[in-house]
C-alpha cells in the first residue's frame, strides 16, 4: 500500500495522478483517489494490489480513509503508538454518524488494566489488543490506565464475546486486574459521542467497584421487548376460536 501525500498546489498533484494512472494500467494495481468530498480534487491516492480480495481492499481503503486526517497523527498518546483521547473522540463521533446512516450498531469498550502505567506493559497490552481486533476498529490510550476500543458493526452478543476474549487475553499478560466497561449503540437510539463514552465509563466504574470484570449497557434497553406476548396471541387466535364456535 502506498499513500502519496498531496502537494500544496492541487494542479501539480493532479498531473502526477494522471501520470501514475497511465502507468498503472501496466501493473496489477488499483488506484483509489482520496478526496475530501465527492467530486473534489484528489489529495492523495491509494494504490492497492488488484489481486487482493474485495473484502481486504475495503478494509484497507477504510483504514486509510479514517487515518488520513493529519491531526490524527498529531494526537497519538505519549508512547506514540496509540491514538490519543482527543483524536479518539473524533473517531467515536464519526462512528456514531455511520451508525445513524447505515442503521448498523457499534460498541465501545473501556479497558482498565492494573500496572499499565509501565510503558513496556502498555506496549504489550496494545499488541495483544491489536491481535484481537480487525483493522477498521479503533484502539486508543485515553489516560494512564485506560485503553479504549471502538468496534464497528458489532452488536451486543458479538461485542460481549469480543470483550470476553479480550479480557481473557489481557488477564493472561498480567497479574493485575483487568476490568472492562462496554457500551453498545444501536441504530434506533444513537447517543452523542460524549454520552456514549460516558455510558462506557459508567460501566467501567461498575466493573471496578462491584464484583465482576465486565459490565455492559445499551442506550435503549428494549431488545427483548419484541416477543409476542400471551395476550397478543390470545387476541390473534380469538378470531379462529370464534370461527370454531360458529
Amino acid at each position, binding site marked *: 500500500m502506498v499513500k502519496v501525500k498531496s502537494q500544496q498546489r492541487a494542479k501539480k498533484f493532479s498531473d502526477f495522478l494522471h501520470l501514475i494512472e497511465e502507468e498503472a494500467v501496466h501493473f496489477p494495481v488499483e488506484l483509489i483517489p482520496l478526496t475530501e468530498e465527492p467530486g473534489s480534487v484528489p489529495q492523495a491516492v491509494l494504490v492497492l494490489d488488484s489481486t487482493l480480495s474485495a473484502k481486504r481492499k*475495503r478494509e484497507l481503503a477504510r483504514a486509510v480513509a479514517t487515518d488520513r486526517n493529519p491531526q490524527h497523527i498529531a494526537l497519538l498518546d505519549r508512547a506514540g503508538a496509540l491514538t490519543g483521547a482527543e483524536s479518539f473522540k473524533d473517531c467515536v463521533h464519526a462512528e456514531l454518524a455511520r451508525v445513524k446512516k*447505515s442503521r*448498523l450498531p457499534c460498541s465501545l469498550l473501556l479497558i482498565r488494566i492494573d500496572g499499565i502505567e509501565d510503558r513496556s506493559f502498555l506496549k504489550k497490552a496494545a499488541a495483544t489488543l491489536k491481535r484481537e481486533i480487525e483493522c477498521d476498529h479503533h484502539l486508543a490510550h485515553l489516560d494512564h490506565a485506560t485503553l479504549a476500543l471502538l468496534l464497528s*458493526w458489532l452488536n451486543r452478543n458479538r461485542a460481549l464475546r469480543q470483550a470476553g476474549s479480550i479480557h481473557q487475553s489481557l488477564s493472561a499478560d498480567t497479574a493485575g486486574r483487568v476490568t472492562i466497561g462496554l457500551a453498545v449503540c444501536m441504530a*434506533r437510539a444513537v447517543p452523542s459521542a460524549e454520552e456514549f463514552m460516558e455510558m462506557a465509563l459508567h460501566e467501567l466504574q461498575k466493573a471496578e467497584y462491584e464484583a465482576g470484570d465486565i459490565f455492559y449497557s445499551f442506550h435503549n434497553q*428494549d431488545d427483548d421487548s419484541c416477543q409476542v*406476548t400471551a395476550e*397478543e396471541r390470545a*387476541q390473534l*387466535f380469538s378470531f379462529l376460536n370464534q370461527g370454531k364456535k360458529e
Partner: protein
Amino acid sequence: MMGKNRKPQIICISSGKGGVGKTSFTINLAAALSAKSRKVLLIDGDLGLANVDVMLGLNVKHTLRETVEEGRDPMEILVEIMPGFFVLPASSGVPEMANLSYEEQAFLTDSLEHIVGNFDFVLVDTAAGVGESVLWFNNWAGKNITMLSPDPTAMTDAYALIKIMKTRYNKKDFHLIINNVKSKKEAREVFTNISTVLENFLGVKPCYQGAIPQDSAVAMAVRKQKPFLVAQPKSRASMAVMEICNKILS
C-alpha cells in the same frame, strides 16, 4: 443498458413464516408490473437458500454471493426474464450468505443502491424468519408488504415480524396480503383480526393490499417453473395479483 437515475419504489415482501407464498407472489407481481411497462428488479433476498431462480427455471451463472465475496458488480449478475423484468439471483446452500456480517450487509446495500436507479420498482423476496437479512431488507425498503395465510402460525409470525420492525426500526406503514384464502370474506376477516391486534398492542394501522385465493393454477405454475400470470393469465390467482399490481400503481 438502461437509463439511470430513476427513483424506484423499493418493496420488501416478507412473511415471518415460510411456505406462505412470498416467492410465488413476488415473481408474479414483478411479471404484472413489467406487463404494465414498468422496469422491475426482483432481488432474491433469501441469500443462503435462494428459490427465485428455481421457480423461474433459470440456470444462473452468477449470484449475489459473488458481489459479496468478490465485489462483482450486480449489473453483471442480472438476468432478464421478460422485457422489463430482471432478477438478481442469490445462492443456495451457502450458510455464510444467510449470516452476513454487518460489514458485508453494508457493502451489499451500497452495491444494490448503485443499480436500483435503473428501475421503476425493486422487489425483494426475503427469507422466512426474522433473521438479520430479513430485518435489514425490510429496513432498507420504502414499502413493506407482509404476507400471511389464514392459519394461526402464519398470523403469529407475521405479527411478530411487524412488531420487530415497529419496535426496533420504528417502521409504521405495513401492507398486508392474505394468501390462500377460500373467499374474499375470509381474507377480510383475517385482515380485520390481525389489524385489530396490531392497533391495540402496537398502535399500527396496517393497509389492506389484497388477497390471493386458493387456486390450483399456482401449484401447476410452480411445477412448470413459470409465473402463473404467464402460464394461466385468466386464473383467479392471476386476476388477484393484477388487482394488487393496479393498487400498487395507483
